[in-house]
Every structure is written in structure tokens, then in C-alpha cells.
């Protein structure tokens, strides 16, 4: 078996004297889509910020990358947030290009890649539009393309579909799985939706109410590609119940 891509052991984080994460320990293998669930305020976003290198951990071990999958913290992170956060003065194509510009990647190649990614997320033909001309779901797709444009090895998603309506959200779930398969990234996906977590994840990591500790961490043994009717499978229900119970519901 290969080495984990992300290795967290006993990670601790305090804001001033407020303990946000007390002990987060889990591994994510290369190419996995790990769902991170836990009650509101338990420290999920904080954990993503630690993975993105925005905050240092106050204790424990954070290791990203392995000899077979080297990781450059300055250019191998893509981020998607709950709000699309597109720059409203830039056209969609130029929005997608932002990370490439910041990293100083060659222009022509990046544009080519950005166009390709917009196609991948189903936004071909919208390159020259401004964000306000797109629906919320479309904007979030553009944000996903932006997170992939510099070809990062790790994509961190913080409740990316939390603001979408239920129907769009289901559609985006399927889209994300398709993009993930095609782009071959390791993804850490934070969500409040337990069924979303099980449906998307190759692995589900459950955190307790803050300060976060590990409640569970299991591999979801459902076949790929996932289809919506799997949500009615008995095994899917078992996984979901397992998470609900851990969260005391």
C-alpha cells in the first residue's frame, strides 16, 4: 500500500485562549475524496486553513505529500468556499486565471487550460461573461475551475454547495465526482450534509463538537462511478446512520 498523501496526527489549534481543534488525526490517500463532517463551529474550516498553510498548527504533525506524490505548498493547493467569491470586475475566464497569474504561470498555456476547465465544469461559452450574468450554481462551477487552473495536487472545499438549492446541489455532486475522476486530484470536502458526505466520499472523517476531536474515520465501500440511486442502497443507509449516531442524532 502506498504512503498517505495527507497525514495528520494529534493536530491542535488555539485562537488566543480558545481551543478550536484539540486532536485531529487522520490520513488521506493520494487521489481520495475525503469528506469532513462535524457540527457547526467544531473547527472544520480551521482544519482546512491549516492544510492550506494559512495557519500553523499549534501542536501535532501535519504532513502533506509523499515521495511518490510530492507536494509544493506554494502551488499545489486549490480552494473553493461556500460563496463563489468571483471578482466581479473580471470576466469568467479571467477569474479562472487568477491563481495562474499569481503564480506567474505562462499566459497562453494557462488560458488554454482555463478554457478546457470551463468546458469540464460545463461553462463553455461563458468565458467572456461577468459573474453577475451567471446563476449561483454556475458561479460555483467557475470557482471550481479556478481552484483547478494551476493544476494543484490538493483541492480544499469548504461547504462549496451549502448555498445552493437542493436540486442544484444534487447535480453539482454528480458533476464534482465527474470532475474529480477526470482531474485526478486529492480532495478534502467539508460539508454539513451527511448524505452528501457519504455519497461523495471515498472516506468520511467525522469530528466531534468543538474543539474538534476524531469521532470516526472510515472508508466508504461503494462502487464508482456513484449514481443517485445508490442513496437508496442498504449500505449507503448504514454509512449514513453511522454518522448520524456519532453526531448524536
Amino acid at each position: 500500500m502506498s504512503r498517505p498523501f495527507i497525514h495528520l496526527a494529534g493536530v491542535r489549534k488555539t485562537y488566543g485562549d480558545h481551543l478550536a481543534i484539540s486532536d485531529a488525526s487522520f490520513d488521506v490517500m493520494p487521489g481520495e475524496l475525503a469528506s469532513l463532517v462535524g457540527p457547526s463551529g467544531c473547527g472544520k474550516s480551521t482544519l482546512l486553513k491549516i492544510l492550506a498553510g494559512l495557519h500553523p498548527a499549534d501542536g501535532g504533525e501535519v504532513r502533506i505529500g509523499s515521495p511518490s506524490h510530492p507536494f509544493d505548498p506554494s502551488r499545489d493547493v486549490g480552494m473553493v468556499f461556500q460563496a463563489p467569491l468571483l471578482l466581479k470586475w473580471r470576466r469568467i475566464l479571467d477569474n479562472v486565471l487568477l491563481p495562474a497569474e499569481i503564480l506567474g504561470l505562462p499566459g497562453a498555456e494557462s488560458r488554454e487550460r482555463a478554457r478546457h476547465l470551463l468546458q469540464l465544469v460545463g461553462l463553455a461559452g461563458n468565458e467572456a461573461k461577468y459573474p453577475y450574468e451567471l446563476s449561483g450554481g454556475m458561479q460555483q462551477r467557475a470557482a471550481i475551475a479556478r481552484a483547478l487552473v494551476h493544476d494543484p495536487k490538493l483541492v480544499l472545499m469548504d461547504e462549496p454547495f451549502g448555498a445552493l438549492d437542493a436540486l442544484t446541489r444534487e447535480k453539482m455532486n454528480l458533476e464534482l465526482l465527474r470532475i474529480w475522476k477526470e482531474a485526478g486530484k486529492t480532495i478534502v470536502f467539508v460539508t454539513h450534509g451527511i448524505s452528501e458526505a457519504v455519497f461523495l466520499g471515498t472516506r468520511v472523517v467525522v469530528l466531534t463538537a468543538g474543539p474538534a476531536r476524531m469521532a470516526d474515520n472510515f472508508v466508504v465501500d461503494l462502487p464508482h462511478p456513484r449514481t443517485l440511486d445508490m442513496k437508496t442502497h442498504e449500505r449507503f443507509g448504514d454509512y449514513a446512520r453511522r454518522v448520524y449516531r456519532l453526531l448524536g442524532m
Partner: protein
Amino acid sequence: MNSKLGRWTLAILAHVALIVAWYLFVRIGNVPRFVMPSPGATLDAFLQPNYDWWANIAVTGTEIFGGYLLALVAGVALALAFSWSKTLEAFFMPLLVSLNMIPKVALGPLIIVWFKYGVFPNSIMAFSIAVFPILLTTARGLREIEPELLDLVRSLRGSRWQLFTKIQLPGALPYIFSGMKVGAILAVAGAIVGEFLGSDKGLGYLMLQVQVTLDTPAMFMAVIMITLLGMVLYGLVLLLERLLVARDARVA
């Protein structure tokens, strides 16, 4: 009729109407020239070479534009520095709000003591009065930028300069312009007050000179020139805003 053309026509009409009303008031009311000159007499003052209009316009214009540009650069730079450090902002912002309460006009005599009189101290006067609205609105605009957007750039180890040019400046631009518009009007007032308090050239100085001889037409002309200088500055700001800020993002 084209509605845009219609608005322009009405705007011009209103200005012409004011001049006509002015003319009729002076003419019919038989108002003495030293109380209120007619439009013609005012224009006539402009043709007298002894007033040195162009040299005075250049002096006052330099004070206004110089002070204003200084205020713009300093206001945006200070606001940017505050966006880097919460401590810096918490320390200086309340102080600046207090300083803003000083009636800048009251500083005039002090500025003369410190800098003598002339173009430079009058620019300082224009600067001191224009800088606060620009600083305060820019700081507000920078605060409105979503922190996650800054995280995104930081996760790519973007430099502060990239953060500023790609996210902060364009994001805060609508706010900066609303401060710039207020600042433009104040800068004109600041320069003129400076000239009133102490100077040996400029339109404000000229007004004091001709006041002694009750040369009202020249005073009227000077006021018009000052107004035109202000309109040029304000117009440039509006033009820049139109070029740089998307219509739906403009802050009134």
C-alpha cells in the same frame, strides 16, 4: 427624443437660464456694479491683462491638484497599511478620526507659521482637508473585501503587491471614488482658504486684492474661475470612475 440628449439639453438650459436671470436682475433692478456686476461686466474683467488671470489660475490649480494628488496617494497608502495590520489600524484609526474633527481651516495660521506662505502651504491646506474622506472610505472599502478572497491569494503565497493590485485595489475602487469625489470639492475649498490666510499669488489672493477697491466684477470672475477649476478636477474624477468602475459597482 433621445433621453440622454434630452438630459444634456436640460442641463445646459438650466445654466443658461441662471445667467439670463442674473443679467435681468442686474439690468431691471438697476443694481450698482460694485454690488453685483452684469455677466458682461464680469466677462470684461477677464479681458483685462492687469489681473494676470492665467498665472493666477496656474498657481491655484497647482495648489488644488497638488494637494489633492498628495491626499489621494497618502489616503490610499495609509488605508492599505491599516489593512495589513489590525494593531496599526486600532492604534491610528481612532486618532485619525479625532484629527478629522479639527476644523482644518483653523490650522491655517499655524501652517503659515510652519511653512511660510505660498504654493506649498496652500497645497498642504488642500491636502489636510481632502485626505480624510479618501482615507476613511478606502479603509471601509478594504474592510468590505471578503477575507476568504485574501486567503485564496495567500494560499498561493501571493505577494502583498499582488494582493493589492489584483484584489484590494479593484475591490475597494468604488469606495475610493466616492471618497475622491468628496475630497475633490474639499481640496478646492482648502486651497482657497489657504490663499485667503496668506499668499502673494493665486485666485484667492487676487480676490483679496480687488476687494479693497470694490472691484466686484473681478471678484465674480475669480469665483467663476475657482469653480471651473473645481469642475475640471471633479470631472476628471468622474471620467476616471466611468472608465475604471463597472456601472453596477459604483457607490454614490
